């Protein structure tokens, strides 16, 4: 379905990762290719040893937001990592780590969850993005 959706994922809190995962899965279900580019704290959340941990919420969530998010999870909402796994099963979803952020966090590809397909720089990201929209989260 035409140009890809390109998501620059910068934030590493569970609420923003969830929002990005939902956008990704929705696009994948429509047959739209998706490129996810992981930077900074989002990349940290994709570390194999941390991906299933609690990554907290954005400051604006507050205590009330925490309760709301926990409620949805208790009702059986799929985690953001599970949502992304299902999106990848549909095909067309490519998840790349930003090479600068890999340096920043002293990571090697072996440190990352298998959800991550590879490491690339911003030039490769723009090349793959084509004329598609770029969303920053």
């Amino acid at each position, binding site marked *: *379905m035409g140009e890809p959706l390109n998501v620059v994922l910068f934030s590493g809190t569970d609420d923003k990762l969830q929002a990005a995962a*939902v956008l990704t899965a929705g696009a994948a279900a429509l*047959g739209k290719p998706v490129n996810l580019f992981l930077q900074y704290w989002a990349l940290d959340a994709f570390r194999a040893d941390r991906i299933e941990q609690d990554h907290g919420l954005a400051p604006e969530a507050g205590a009330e937001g925490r309760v709301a998010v926990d409620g*949805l999870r208790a009702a059986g909402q799929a985690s953001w990592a599970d*949502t992304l796994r299902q999106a990848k099963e549909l095909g067309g979803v490519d998840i790349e780590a930003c090479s600068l952020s890999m340096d920043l966090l002293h990571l090697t590809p072996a440190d990352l969850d298998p959800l991550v397909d590879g490491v690339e720089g911003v030039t490769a990201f723009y090349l793959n993005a084509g004329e598609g929209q770029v969303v920053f989260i």
Partner: protein
Amino acid sequence: MTLQITQTLDARGLSCPMPIVKTAQAIKTIPSGGLIEVLATDPGSVKDFAAWSRTTGNELVEQTTDSGVFRFVLRRK
């Protein structure tokens, strides 16, 4: 005439976008022209299934609501 359902997908209790994601996965397992029935409770699913059907070309054959459960029947393109 009763529709000949090939497969039923119970997506009740799943939140957005899982009903659509599960449907996109499941419809690949039935033959072209086959019918899949989906049950969902996500309030966004009425508009989502209509949009998904338009975009992917899998026809929305039937849509009903019964005590908070939305039922969709789609024909695989």
